[in-house]
């Protein structure tokens, strides 16, 4: 079927509709749908033929005359894909627009048909003047479709658009006629050939000016910042189904038009495209930060995404074969997601971002929302992810760091407001409104979701890097989406079985290091999941999120190349975000988690891209061979990325809230397991790159300091917490600091100790979070001073906490001591004295906060309201008891795990190993015999206990009201509690160290961004004439900047 039929059918049907009686609306509507479907089918047919290679690109001649004497069209791969996008968007929009079109009659349907046809025409035509004609058709039909809106403000928005498009068409016509004069042709390829040959006047003097006018007029349709106020008004006020067309179809068509025009302009204009595209991308994303209306926010996001693709067009010269893959990936992900979000907004009656909270009652729509957000941000498995990866590599290989940096910055800001919005949907109070669940509307949204996933699969296949969607762990995680109707207990059993099975399958492939991480992630994950048996009902959304995180972790440790590593990293980030967001009050914390994590992920992406220098696939081992020029930058970027996950001081502010507000069984997952991903990254980084110098500064030494400071400050902050879970969360910062410190020592024992921390931290942090969670479940509070005397009511929890604390504080006999012992040995063999002192200091501080857990929760006076409490639920206690058993076992036989690892580490650091003889471990500085220690401690314990029992015999029990209160009831009763502000004296002495400087710093940055947004948005006054001013000013400024620097 000739592609020209797409145009002919669109037009013919539009004319036919005018012939129909106005009362036959249903018939007219059906004809419209059929016509759009046929147009889509023709495009799909071509796409299939072109991509399967059964036919090549074809030229379609009109009037039986060859170009340039007659207009010709071209149907190639890009054209087919874009035409399909446009026609399908038109078709789906027509379905969505059923009510308004039935109300307004056949004319509105004709206008939609012509709009779709003209966007397709813009893509297909190879003639500049024909391009102008289709553009004007698009403008006029836009002017008509805007009026389909129920929003009365759409009228003024449409008029503003018409004003600006008048100016645009003036420039376009002048540009075209002078190009014709300079090149003697109106055919794009003719003009391009002439300008490329350089032998004509096309790009000299007036020819260059003519091209500038053509170019800037076409660029105006991309809604460049700041000449885009009109577009935002349309986005906000038009019918959402039309906004979907405007964003997806019109955006794609305009981009392709500019791309064609650049054939004439040649490479000299690519930097201009880059500059306009990037400034639009960043500025629109910043402006979106302060939006409160969903459709306007989506408008800003659309403007930004189109700007991004334009910036990619600006990189055309270096992308080569990858150009279509990258630009297409970003564009299609944007188009599908944006259209989907607009359609979704069409099912909601209210415009505030927070009113999307209504979606939480509809898991399927929430899933759609999540998919669209992930698509826009460029997370796996969607096309934008692969495109972003390839783009970053191409840019880094060519040294275009500024472009790369700005793209990542803009993407991060975009992720920030999109995930904030998603948080609203899940956590805010839903207003009293009804979601419009009409089948045709929801159907259209779901088609967009399916298209997004399908494109993700396709792009994965085309990437040549490995298709994320064929990874077994990910498929397993996604299968929980389909299983979400099952009771939680059944899903839990499946999840546990899956983790264990995957471990058994992949076990043989692990080296000792990976084995340790593998056991913690998979087996450890399964143990924590035991606690999830406690929950009832279906627990919608929990399992897909949790298993997504586990899938990412499982994929992370088997990743061989940088792409696999990064894909896994993003998957685990996304999964853990959803998981953290489930907590009752975790909305802001989950947001800061995802923003920090994605910032870290982007740093990792940039690091890998710089390291690879264009080589793909890039094995992780290859990090060892990075040239000295790039090595320090790679090191810094990767280390910064991993530090966001280990919550090193400075990048830690997301952690306390995220871990403390998570659900009872989620806290151990995100603390005990998730943090290890960062440590694993550090292992890989240091194993391959080792010591790296940056302007004479030893980077591992910097890490050493960061680790030491994290340990000190994390512990310090922990001692001042009143909330038990928050206390544990802060202590994780300290613990990760220790591990980082150990790694940065860059010696055998340091690494062994870090691994010891990996294991220990998992065990005791999971255990403590579970016990505290179980207690909080029973008492209904996490504040320690509200508890007390629970030792007799919850003895098992007490034992768990006691054992955990002993293990964690590093006193004999439990494994924490082993860790400490190795640690001190490690320090002895290093010469970093000052950080060493800091690390020593933080040890006792850890004991202070741990003491509070036992002291305040379990000892002291039982609160009246807690008298009838029972022990924590069985399923929460069970994993704790397993951990207790493990800790004791590990304390006696640390060699079980460490011996093999020790030998393995010997291959990196041959000297300073440990000697393992029987049950005794010897280092250069002394020996450690776990069994004897256990015996000694046991003897001491039994003696002391006997002594206490003996003393207790004579003790006098103090009754609650034995104490006389003679004062008024204080204003804040908790202030009189002895456990409140327990370490006030220390706070006086050391409190200055815990000033929230870092929080203020990051708060200042977001505040500045929001302030900039609020200031800049005043620029958009809403006055159509001012918008025309903006455009004319934009033209003049681009002219001065681009032509001024040109000869």
């Amino acid at each position, binding site marked *: 079927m000739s592609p020209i039929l797409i145009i002919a059918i669109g037009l013919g049907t539009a004319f036919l509709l005018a012939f129909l009686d106005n009362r036959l609306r249903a018939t007219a509507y059906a004809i419209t749908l059929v016509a759009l479907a046929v147009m889509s089918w023709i495009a799909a047919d071509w796409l299939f033929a072109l991509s399967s290679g059964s036919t090549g690109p074809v030229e379609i001649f009109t009037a039986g005359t060859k170009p340039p004497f007659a207009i010709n069209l071209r149907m190639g791969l890009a054209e087919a894909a874009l035409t399909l996008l446009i026609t399908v968007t038109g078709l789906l929009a027509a379905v969505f627009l059923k009510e308004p079109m039935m109300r307004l009659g056949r004319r509105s349907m004709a206008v939609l048909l012509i709009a779709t046809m003209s966007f397709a025409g813009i893509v297909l035509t190879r003639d500049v003047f024909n391009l102008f004609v289709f553009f004007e058709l698009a403008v006029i039909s836009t002017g008509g479709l805007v009026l389909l809106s129920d929003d009365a403000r759409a009228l003024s928005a449409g008029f*503003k658009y018409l004003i600006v498009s008048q100016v645009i068409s003036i420039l376009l016509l002048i540009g075209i006629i002078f190009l014709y004069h300079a090149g003697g042709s109106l055919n794009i390829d003719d003009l391009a050939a002439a300008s490329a040959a350089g032998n004509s006047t096309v790009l000299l003097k007036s020819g260059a000016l003519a091209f500038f006018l053509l170019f800037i007029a076409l660029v105006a349709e991309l809604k460049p910042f700041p000449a885009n106020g009109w577009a935002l008004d349309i986005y906000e006020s038009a019918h959402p189904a039309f906004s979907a067309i405007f964003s997806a179809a019109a955006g794609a068509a305009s981009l392709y038009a500019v791309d064609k025009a650049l054939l004439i302009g040649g490479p000299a204009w690519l930097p201009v495209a880059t500059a306009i595209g990037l400034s639009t991308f960043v500025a629109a994303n910043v402006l979106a930060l302060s939006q409160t209306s969903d459709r306007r926010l989506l408008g800003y996001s659309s403007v930004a995404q189109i700007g991004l693709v334009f910036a990619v067009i600006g990189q055309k010269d270096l992308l080569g074969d990858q150009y279509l893959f990258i630009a297409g990936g970003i564009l299609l992900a944007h188009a599908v997601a944006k259209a989907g979000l607009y359609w979704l907004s069409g099912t909601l009656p209210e415009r505030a971002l927070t009113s999307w909270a209504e979606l939480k009652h509809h898991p399927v729509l929430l899933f759609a929302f999540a998919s669209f957000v992930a698509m826009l941000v460029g997370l796996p498995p969607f096309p934008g992810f692969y495109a972003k990866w390839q783009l970053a590599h191409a840019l880094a290989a060519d040294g275009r760091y500024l472009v790369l940096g700005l793209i990542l910055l803009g993407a991060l800001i975009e992720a920030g407001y999109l995930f904030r919005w998603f948080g609203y949907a899940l956590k805010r109070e839903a207003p009293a409104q009804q979601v419009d669940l009409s089948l045709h509307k929801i159907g259209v949204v779901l088609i967009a979701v399916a298209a997004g996933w399908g494109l993700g699969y396709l792009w994965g296949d085309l990437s040549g890097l490995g298709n994320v969607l064929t990874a077994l762990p990910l498929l397993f995680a996604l299968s929980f989406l389909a299983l979400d109707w099952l009771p939680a207990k059944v899903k839990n059993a499946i999840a546990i079985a899956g983790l264990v099975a995957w471990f058994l399958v992949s076990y043989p492939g692990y080296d000792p290091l990976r084995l340790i991480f593998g056991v913690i992630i998979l087996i450890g994950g399964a143990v924590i999941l035991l606690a999830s048996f406690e929950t009832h009902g279906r627990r919608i959304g929990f399992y897909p999120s949790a298993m997504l995180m586990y899938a990412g972790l499982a994929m992370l440790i088997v990743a061989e190349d940088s792409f696999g590593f990064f894909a896994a990293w993003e998957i685990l980030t996304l999964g853990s975000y959803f998981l953290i967001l489930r907590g009752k009050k975790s909305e802001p914390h989950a947001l800061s988690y995802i923003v920090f994590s994605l910032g870290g992920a982007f740093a990792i992406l940039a690091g890998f891209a710089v390291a690879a220098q264009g080589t793909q696939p890039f094995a992780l081992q290859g990090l060892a061979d990075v040239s000295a020029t790039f090595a320090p930058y790679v090191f810094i970027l990767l280390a910064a990325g991993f530090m966001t996950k280990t919550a090193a001081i400075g990048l830690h502010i997301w952690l306390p809230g995220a871990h403390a507000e998570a659900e009872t069984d989620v806290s151990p997952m995100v603390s005990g397991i998730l943090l290890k991903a960062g440590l694993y990254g550090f292992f890989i980084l240091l194993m391959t790159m080792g010591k790296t110098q940056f302007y004479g500064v030893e980077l591992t030494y910097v890490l050493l300091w960061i680790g030491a400071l994290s340990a000190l400050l994390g512990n310090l902050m922990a001692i001042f917490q009143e909330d038990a879970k928050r206390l544990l969360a802060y202590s994780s910062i300290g613990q990760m600091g220790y591990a980082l410190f150990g790694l940065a020592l860059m010696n055998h024992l340091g690494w062994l100790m870090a691994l010891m921390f990996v294991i220990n931290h998992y065990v005791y942090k999971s255990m403590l979070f579970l016990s505290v969670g179980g207690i909080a479940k029973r008492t209904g509070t996490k504040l320690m001073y509200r508890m007390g005397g629970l030792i007799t009511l919850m003895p098992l929890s007490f034992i768990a906490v006691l054992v955990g604390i002993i293990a964690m504080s590093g006193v004999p006999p439990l494994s924490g001591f082993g860790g400490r012992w190795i640690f001190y040995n490690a320090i002895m063999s290093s010469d970093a004295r000052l950080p060493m002192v800091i690390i020593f200091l933080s040890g006792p501080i850890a004991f202070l906060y741990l003491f509070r857990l036992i002291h305040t929760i379990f000892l002291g006076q039982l609160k009246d309201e807690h008298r009838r409490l029972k022990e924590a639920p069985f399923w929460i206690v069970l994993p704790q008891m397993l951990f207790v058993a493990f800790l004791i076992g590990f304390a006696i036989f640390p060699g079980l795990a460490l011996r093999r690892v020790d030998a393995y580490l010997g291959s990196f650091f041959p000297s300073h190993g440990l000697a393992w003889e029987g049950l005794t471990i010897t280092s250069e500085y002394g020996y450690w015999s776990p069994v004897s220690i256990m015996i000694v401690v046991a003897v001491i314990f039994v003696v002391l206990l006997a002594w206490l029992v003996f003393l207790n015999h004579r003790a006098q029990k103090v009754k609650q009201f034995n104490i006389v209160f003679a004062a008024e009831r204080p204003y804040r009763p908790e202030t009189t509690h002895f456990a409140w502000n327990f370490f006030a004296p220390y706070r006086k002495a050391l409190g200055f160290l815990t000033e929230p400087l870092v929080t203020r710093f990051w708060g200042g940055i977001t505040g500045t961004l929001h302030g900039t947004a609020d200031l800049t948005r005043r620029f958009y006054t809403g006055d159509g004439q001012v918008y025309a001013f903006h455009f004319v000013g934009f033209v003049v400024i681009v002219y001065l900047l681009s032509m001024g620097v040109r000869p």
Partner: protein
Amino acid sequence: MILVSMAAGFLLILMGLYGALTNRNILRMIVAFTIASTGVNLVLVSVGYLAGRTAPILDAAVPVADAAERIIDPVPQALVLTAIVIGLGITALMLAYAFKLYETKRTLDISKFTELKG
């Protein structure tokens, strides 16, 4: 000579744009754009003009054989017709919009239609 008409065309465009950018009244803006469009059309036809030649219609005065030496460039003539018609379409659309805008607020002052902004 041809430069004069072209310069006049450009001047009309600038005048039209000045009018459109400084007049608050919607109808005046539309008229101003019409002036600018006229300027564009004038520039368009100027570009195709060749001194001393005639209209591109073949008849007794312009035989087919030496048409190439006798006629002016027909392409801009064809383009200008399209441009005129399109300009007319947009003007009609803007007028309809103006009518509706007036109906909603009883004013034609463009600066009064700023409920969408920021």
